[in-house]
Every structure is written in structure tokens, then in C-alpha cells.
């Protein structure tokens, strides 16, 4: 994707840093929902 507007330099780096942190949260959330789903399945089987 070509840049159209001035992306700043510091603002771009700050956004990338935040994106890294939130990107990790995505996996944390994915893992917790997988884990929760697994437990719920176990509970419903009992």
C-alpha cells in the first residue's frame, strides 16, 4: 500500500509500538477464549 499522507515519524513508531502490544493481546484473548471454550465443553460433558 502506497503512503498518501505524511505518516509522521514518531507518531508512526508510537502506533507501531502500540500495535505490537495490542497484537499480543489478540493472542492472549484468543487463548483465553479457546481455554474457556474447552472448559465449558468439559463442564457440559460431565
Amino acid at each position, binding site marked *: 500500500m502506497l503512503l498518501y499522507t505524511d505518516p*509522521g515519524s514518531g507518531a508512526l513508531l508510537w502506533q507501531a509500538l502500540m500495535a505490537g502490544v495490542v497484537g499480543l493481546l489478540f493472542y492472549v484473548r484468543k487463548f483465553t477464549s479457546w481455554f474457556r471454550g474447552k472448559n465449558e465443553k468439559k463442564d457440559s460433558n460431565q
Partner: protein
Amino acid sequence: MASGRVVITRTLAADAAQALWRDERIQPLLERIRPELILEHTPLDFPSYPYEWPAEMLHAAAELTLELAMALLASGLGLKDATPYNVLFRGPDPVFVDVLSVEQRDPRDPLWRAYAQFVRTFLLPLAVWKRFGLAPGEVLLARRDGLEPEDLYGWLGWRRLLPPWLSLVTMPVVLGARRRDDLSIYRPRRLREPEQARFVLGALFRSLKRTLRKLAPPPRRSAWTAYAETRTHYSEEQAQAKDRFVSSALEEFRPRRVLDIGANVGRFSAMAARRGASVVAIDCDAAVVGQTWRMACRDRLDILPLVVNLARPTPAVGWRNAECLSFLDRARGRFDLVLMLALVHHLVVTERIPLEEIVSLAAEFTTDLAVIEFVAPQDPMFQRIARGREHLHRDLIPQEFESACRARFAILRSETLPGSFRTLYLLRRSG
């Protein structure tokens, strides 16, 4: 588009497109870019620019931009830029007009490339208004692309460690200083999963929305915000006579387009809008223009309030002064009725503008009618603003004003407010 928040846009009809190709001014451009498609959008009545908006309107334009970016995210689209110039106002409502700003998003890109521009042109001017009282118009008239974090860093002192400055100014400045010459930072970044990129962007937009909410401009007070409520220089009887005079002119002639100059909090603009007129209300005080905008939104009135000082109207701006038209170029001949109420004495005393010039400019704005209030030097408000210089205006008598009017208008009727030195004139343009 159906909600009216994005301007209605369609493909230009074949005959209209051919007419463009025949237009000598446009033909060279079309030959250079060879467009596959030419679009047109419905025109908006009166274009305005971000440097004419009070903070309230800049905030509304920011909200619209962000809501659109969030709505597009779900469809795999995005905004390639985020500037207030993508927004115009229809009455008090913001309308997104730059449909070409919408683009297909790289599904694995977690960054919003227009983020920095959104911060520069919306968030920082709003934050500066809220914290320092510097009006967005003053910032954006001189700086098309808003405020750089570096511009603000030095002003903030210890505040740079507090929100919102920490994330909007300090972190970008600190990080940017370390990698100033590193061009690799502009290379595209891609995550493994599109869903993850969407998650990151969604979180970014929600965070910007929270910041924007905190930057919502509170109603401000100024020397003029209480003017309409207090109006101590009008008795109840005088105020009622003035209202009657203006409303009878509105009832009789039913103007469709009204320019209210020196509108204050929009009392007479509302009067005109309630009778079906589309009103542009200008005042030089950003606080009263903000109040007018709130009132127009609350009461659903077709009023476009703008921060414009008639004595120093918005100039033409941009490359060769040709990118954005001056206020006068946009306003000339655009209105059926011009209101200049309790304004002329300010222009005469404070700005030293001759009466003939004021009347002449009113005649340039209107195609038909004007209602002008003449305030004589004996009036207490006149004396307050003259500050001991009444002798400079000894010759300012109603007859002199009438003679200035007759050069451009016919006087349809006039009425001196009972027991006052104020006279209202209903004028019709002659010639």
C-alpha cells in the same frame, strides 16, 4: 450515504463527462490522468473551511471521520487520509465529502497510515484549544496540516508527562528523534492474520474515540456569550420592537438564503431558519459561534455558523491563493437577505470603516434585501465602545446613514426603537 453523513456521489453522466473533455481549462488535466471514471457529488450550499469552524465543529468533523474509519474497517476498507478538509457542513451537520479517500485496505496491515494526520489536524488543535484557549481557526489558517508534536513539545513543560500529551506529543517526539533518518520505518508492516490486524486497528480507533471524547470542547464564556440574555442596552419594549421588525421582514419576503453578520448566539439566525431559510451566521467570537452551533444542532435548524470577522474576512488561502476561496468570494451575491444587526457601530468605531463601505459590502452580499440597524453616537453601547472618542463620530446621524444606503438600496421602511438611538432599516437593492 443514505444517512447524509457521506456526500451522495455518482458517476458523471456521459454527456456531462464529454462536456468536461471539451472544457479547455480541464482538458489538459484529463488528458494527463486519463480517468476511467469521473464522479460527481451533490453540491453543498456554502463551502466552509476548518479555519472558520469553532472547536465544536472541528470536534464533530473528527467524530465523523473516526466513525467512518471504524465502519469501513469491517468491510476491508480504510481512509487513506484524515484531514478536516475531507468534511464540509450542511447547516450544522458535518458531511464527509472526499469519497476518493476510501481505499481497499491491506488486510494484514495493522497501522492506520492517516493516524498522524488525524492527530495533527484534529486532536492537537482541539487539545490546544481546551488547554490553552488557542482557537483551532488560528492554528489551521496558518498550518494546513495542523500541529506537529514537535511544535508543542517545548510549550508543555512538565505537562508533557500527562495525558493526552504523553501519547499525542511526548512519545512520538521521543521515538521520532531516535529514528529520524531511518527510512525503514516507512516500510509496510504485516501481521500473520488479517483478523489480528483488524483487532489492532479496532483497538486504535476505540482509543482515539476515547481521547476525542475527552477533548470535547466545553461551552465557553466570552464577553459576548451573555449578550443576548442580558441585552441591558435594550428595554423589553425595544427588544420586542426589534424582534417584530425583523420577523415581519422575514414573514413578508420569505428569503431562502440569509447571511447574518455579527450573529452573536444566533437569535435572529434562528428566527430566519424557523421560517425556512438556509442561514450562514458569522461572528468573530469563536465562543458565540460555538454556542450558535450547539443551538442549531439542538433545535435542528439549517444554520451554518462560522468564525469570520467581517473587518478581516477569511483570505484566499493555499498555493497561489487559489486552493480555498476567500469568504468574500464565496459570499458575494449568494444571499437574498443580509442581516446586520447591532454591528455597524462596531465597524465604524472599532475598525474605522466608513458607512458607505459597509453599506456597499452589504449590497455585494445580497441579491435583494438587507436589514441593517443603525446605532447613533448617543447610544450607551456606542459610547462604551467609543471610549471617549465620540467627537470622531459627531457627524454620524441617521440622515448620513440613509444617504449612504440610497446609493445602493431603496429604503422600504425604517423604525426607531422606542426611546432609543437605534433605528432599523429594511432595504431593497437597487440596480
